[in-house]
């Protein structure tokens, strides 16, 4: 005990400047990340702002049970899972295929120009992206409506009024925005493929497609597996922003996911806000997430050296 104390003192004397560097970041992380985690106690209380954390009544797991037994539970969790899985199925393979293609074409200039173009939409904000969708697919004023009218002579139905369309808009706009950007990591992995494999295969008369299939693709499999596993780990953590912006009263049946529901219950002016209940829902989601990421990371570290921690 005394020995470690001494060691600490010696180290502190030697490295005090380094610890000084860390003071602000540590203060920040404690206040803005760990204090809100402490705030999670609300989920186990019947929190009343005027009573505060100390005097509000404790209710145990009541809020969690209320959520799990509610009609909305199945709906909201189901929507989150479906949207997430649909996203992964579509947005995961496309960047890989694109990277394999762009890596195999022989015109370096075209490859460069293409990459610049397809990377661009990644930097468009969610607000603008959703704005573009609303503008272009508007049944009267958008290019979709105008083209439909020019061909058939009548205006189409409002695409945004249908709950079924919400998921397609969400997923395919993500494809449009990110397939180029997501392919960067694969093109990087492909650039390190040993050229002697290709030369040997060419001498043996392998076609380009065969080389892509049997040389390029196996080389990026480790990257693919890690990315897939990490994607699976974040299956419950679909972001609030884009879903919220695409949401309207007509598509709520498919568009109400956990994070938007938390907002709806806790902060939205239209509802009577229930802080404790909303926190419990958010907490439920965070815990499920944490378990998912941890288990998925265990699998990841089994398959390769690289894992999250």
């Amino acid at each position, binding site marked *: 005990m005394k020995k470690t104390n001494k060691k*600490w003192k010696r180290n502190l004397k030697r490295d005090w400047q*380094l610890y000084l560097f860390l003071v602000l*970041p540590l203060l920040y992380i404690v206040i*803005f990340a760990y204090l809100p985690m402490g705030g*999670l106690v609300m989920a186990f209380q019947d929190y009343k702002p005027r009573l505060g954390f100390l005097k509000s009544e404790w209710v145990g797991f009541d809020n969690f049970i209320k959520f799990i037994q509610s009609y909305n539970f199945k709906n909201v969790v189901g929507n989150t899972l479906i949207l997430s899985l649909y996203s992964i199925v579509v947005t995961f393979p496309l960047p890989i295929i*694109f990277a394999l293609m762009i890596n195999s074409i022989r015109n370096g200039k075209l490859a460069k120009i293409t990459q610049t173009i397809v990377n*661009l939409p990644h*930097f468009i904000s969610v607000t603008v992206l959703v704005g573009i969708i609303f503008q272009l697919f508007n049944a009267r004023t958008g290019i979709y409506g105008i083209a439909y009218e020019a061909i058939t002579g009548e205006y189409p139905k409002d695409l945004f009024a249908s709950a079924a369309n919400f998921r397609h808009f969400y997923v395919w706009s993500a494809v449009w925005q990110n397939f180029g950007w997501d392919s960067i990591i694969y093109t990087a992995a492909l650039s390190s493929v040993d050229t002697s494999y290709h030369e040997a295969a060419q001498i043996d008369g392998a076609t380009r497609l065969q080389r892509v299939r049997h040389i390029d693709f196996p080389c990026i499999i480790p990257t693919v597996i890690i990315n897939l596993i990490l994607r699976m780990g974040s299956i419950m953590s679909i972001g609030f922003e884009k879903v919220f*912006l695409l949401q309207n009263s007509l598509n709520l049946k498919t568009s109400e996911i956990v994070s938007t529901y938390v907002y709806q219950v806790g902060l939205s002016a239209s509802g009577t806000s229930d802080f404790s209940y909303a926190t419990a829902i*958010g907490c439920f989601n965070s815990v499920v997430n944490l378990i998912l990421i941890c288990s998925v990371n265990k699998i990841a570290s089994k398959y390769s050296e690289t894992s999250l921690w």
Partner: protein
Amino acid sequence: MQAMKKSKLKLSREDKIYYAVCYTIIILLSLIVLYPMIYVVSASVSSGTALMAGEVWLFPKDITFLGYKTILQYKNVWIGYRNTIFYTVIGTFINVVMTLLCAYPLTRNNLMGRKQIMMLFTFTMLFSGGMIPNYILMKKLHLLNTVWVMIIPGALSVYNMIVTKTFIQSSIPEELLEASKIDGCDDIRYFFTILLPLSKAVIAVISLWYAVGHWNAYFNAFLYLTDKELYPLQIFLKEILIQSKVNSELMDPEVALAMQNLQLILKYGMIVISTLPIFCLYPFAQKYFVKGVMIGSVKG
């Protein structure tokens, strides 16, 4: 790349088909990505009548800058632009300082408690208090409806900190530290005179990431701000593009008739002027963005 050297080799029939398919798909994909962007720009400078008549498919028709003129008269756009620039500049500066402050000590292997501190930071990437506790915290700290709520709660991104740390560990040799220690240089001086100049590349990467993040952010403003004077551009965009709220100050009776069509091109114009700064920056910054993805992919 290696294929280029072999380009004089005669192609087999299968290869010809493969390349034909490849080129077609790649060019098609670029066009699909490009088309909506070109259309938005074209629509923003076309006349609303031409747009509604379906005369604009790719290039603008009856070129007019009426939409942009109207936008520039719109007070909220100026407020939004001013605030966004302020949040981006100050926010990014604080972000970069915080990130470097945090990353540098954690690159030092013999720092006691390094592992524990690192855990403290990475855990926040996996778990958080969530929306409501955060909201209550901002309220209790009296940050609601202040400029600072747009800057301080996101002052440090742990992911960017790890990217920076990885960069320092992998590209700045430890011998440099030992050599300067022998010359009597302390940690603070080493940081300013040696580490900072050598970390220019990663500083560029994280500054760009932070800046784009600030420019595009609307979530914090949406939750924590109700004062119009503090709104960033993205919130006004949300009102105009998504809720179709065009302020009555635009409803000058003289232009009331042309208003319907004007509103349409005005929205396209808003999309353009809000995204333009990033798109102008992008071609020059592309290599840094890509580099950042590479450093980031080394770990996790």
